C-alpha cells in the first residue's frame, strides 16, 4: 500500500493535535514543574538577597546616597543572572542526550523540535517573573525610598518609616524614571533569553558539560566586548550587544532605547532556537 492509499489511522490514535503542539504542551508542562518549586524560589531569593545586601550596606555606610549604591545593583544582578542562567541551562539538553532520556522522549509521538522548544518555553515565565520581574520591581521600590531620603543621615530605627512613606507618597527618583526602569528590566529579560537560547544550541552541538559551560560563559563576555569595543553602531545594532549597550546606558542614567534592541534580541533568540531545533532534528540518538 502506498502512502497516498493509506487508510485513516485507527480511531484510538486520531487526534487534532500534532506532534509539535502536543509535544510542546506536554513537555513544557513537565519541564516547568521541575523549575517551579525550588529553582524559581532560588532566583527570587538571589535577586532579593542582592538587593537586601546593598540596602544593608547603605544602612552601615550612609555617607553615600542610596541611589549611588543601588545603581550597581542592575549590573551586579544582571551578571549574576547570566551566570546562573548559563550554569543552570548547560546540562538541559546535553545531559538528556548523553543519558539517553532524549531518545526515550522522542521515541514518543512528539516532534523533535518540541523537545528543544519545551526546554526554552518552560524557562520564559521563570525569567520574566522570578528572575527579573519580582526582584526588579522590588528594586524599584527601594529606589523610591532612596529618593525620599536623599543624602540625609539614616539610622536603622527609621527603617519602618522608610518602608511605609514612599508607598504613601508614590514619589520616584528623578534620575531613573519608571519607563527607564521598566526598559532596563525588559532588556535584561531579552538578553537572558538570548543567553538561554544560545545554551540550548550549545547543548545540541557539544557533548561535554565543561565545553558547554565554557562556551556558554563566552556568550555574555562576547556581548559585553561587542558593546564596548567601539564597533560601528550599525554593526552592533545587528547583534544582541545592542540590547546590552542600551541597558548599560540606562543603568548609567542615560535615555534607554528598548524597542529596536528587543526586536533584534528576539530575532536572535528565535534564530538560535531554530538552529538548535534543526540540528537536533537531524541528530541520531
Amino acid at each position: 500500500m502506498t502512502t497516498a492509499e493509506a487508510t485513516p489511522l485507527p480511531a484510538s490514535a486520531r487526534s487534532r493535535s500534532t506532534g509539535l503542539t502536543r509535544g510542546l504542551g506536554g513537555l513544557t508542562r513537565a519541564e516547568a514543574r521541575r523549575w517551579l518549586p525550588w529553582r524559581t524560589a532560588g532566583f527570587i531569593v538571589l535577586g532579593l538577597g542582592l538587593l537586601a545586601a546593598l540596602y544593608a550596606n547603605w544602612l552601615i555606610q550612609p555617607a553615600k546616597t542610596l541611589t549611588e549604591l543601588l545603581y550597581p545593583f542592575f549590573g551586579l544582578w544582571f551578571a549574576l543572572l547570566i551566570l546562573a542562567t548559563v550554569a543552570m541551562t548547560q546540562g538541559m539538553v546535553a545531559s538528556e542526550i548523553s543519558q539517553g532520556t532524549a531518545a526515550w522522549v522522542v521515541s514518543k509521538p512528539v516532534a523533535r523540535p518540541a523537545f528543544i522548544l519545551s526546554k526554552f518555553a518552560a524557562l520564559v515565565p521563570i525569567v520574566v517573573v522570578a528572575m527579573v520581574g519580582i526582584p526588579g520591581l522590588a528594586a524599584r521600590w527601594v529606589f523610591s525610598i532612596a529618593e525620599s531620603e536623599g543624602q540625609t543621615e539614616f539610622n536603622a530605627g527609621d527603617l519602618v518609616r522608610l518602608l511605609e512613606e514612599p508607598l504613601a507618597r508614590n514619589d520616584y527618583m528623578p534620575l531613573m524614571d519608571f519607563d527607564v526602569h521598566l526598559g532596563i528590566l525588559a532588556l535584561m529579560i531579552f538578553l537572558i533569553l538570548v543567553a538561554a537560547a544560545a545554551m540550548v544550541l550549545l547543548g545540541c552541538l557539544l557533548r561535554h558539560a565543561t565545553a558547554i559551560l565554557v562556551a556558554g560563559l563566552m556568550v555574555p563576555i562576547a556581548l559585553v566586548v561587542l558593546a564596548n569595543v567601539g564597533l560601528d553602531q550599525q554593526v552592533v545594532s545587528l547583534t544582541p550587544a545592542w540590547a546590552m549597550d542600551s541597558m548599560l546606558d540606562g543603568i548609567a542614567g542615560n535615555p534607554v532605547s528598548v524597542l529596536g534592541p528587543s526586536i533584534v534580541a528576539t530575532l536572535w533568540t528565535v534564530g538560535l532556537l531554530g538552529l538548535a531545533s534543526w540540528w537536533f532534528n537531524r541528530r541520531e540518538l
Partner: protein
Amino acid sequence: MTDLALQTHELRKHFGSTQVLRSVDLAIPRHSIYGFLGPNGAGKSTTMKTVMGLLRPSGGSIEVFGRDTRRYGPSARAHIGYLPQHPRFHPYRTCRQTLLFVAALYPGHRDRRELRDHADELLDAVGLSDLANRRTHGLSGGESQRLGLAQALIAEPELLILDEPAAALDPEGRHDVLEIIEGLRGRTTVFYSTHILEDVQRVSDRVAMISNGRIVADGPLTDLLSGDDSSWTIRTLGSSEAVQARLSSEPWVSSVDVSRRRDSDVWTVRLAAGAPEEQLLPTILADNQLAIAEFHPSDHTLEDAYLAIVGHNNEH
C-alpha cells in the same frame, strides 16, 4: 485498511563505511506476535531504532499501519509503544509519574483519575506496585526493564516494539513478561527481539531472523519448526563404518553425522532437495551387520533452525 502493522522495504543503514542494515524487508501482520532473532551485531536494535525514528535510514522505507514514517513520524509513533534495549528515565520522577508523563505525550484525552488507575494496574502487572512512588534513579536493571515495559503499554498502543524485553530479568520477571505478551495476543501486534529462543518458541506465531544486516528467514513459526523434512534420525546397533561410507557417497545425501551413545550409534542424515527418501532405509539395511533400533524424521527445535539458517548465512 492495510493488514500490516509494520512494513519495511529495502531498509538500509550504514554508520560511516560500516553497513549495518543491508536490505531489511519486514512485513508484520496486525495482531501477530513477531519474534526477531539474530546474533549480536546482526542489526536487530538498529532496525528497531530506525523504525522509531531514532536513527535515520540510509535508504528504503518504513510504514506503520500503511503510513510512511518519514512523512508521518509523530503520528505513526502514536500507534507504537517502544521499549529500548536499555531503558532510561528521568531520574527525578517516580515510577507512577513516569507512566503519567508518557501517557500525556500520546494523543487522546483520558480522565486523570482513570489514567492513574491504569498506571497502577500496569505497575502491578509488571511487579512494581510497591515501587510506584520511588524515584526511577534507584531502580535496578530488572526494575527499569519492567518499568520500560509498563511505559510502552501505558497508551494501549496497537503496535508494541520491544528490544530484548527479558534480557535483564530474572526467571520470574521473564515469565511475567511472557505472560503480558501472551495476554496481548489478538489485540496488539508485538514485534520483539530476543536471544532467548525458548521464549520465541513459547509465544511467537511468526519469526524473522536477521544476520549481517539481512533478513535470512521470515515466516510462521510452525513453518520454521517443521524444518527440513528430509532430515532423518536413525539409531543403529552394530558396526556402522561401512554403511556410513556408502551412504555418504550417495549423491542424494547431503550429510551424515554419527554420534556414539552407549551401545548404539545415532545418525542424523540430511538428504538433498528432491532426494528419493524411500531409498534411505534400503541403503542402510543393505548391510546386514546393522540392526535398526529407531528410524524417524528428525525433530526440529527453533535452535536447530536458527543455527542452520544463521550459521549457513554466516559461512557465506
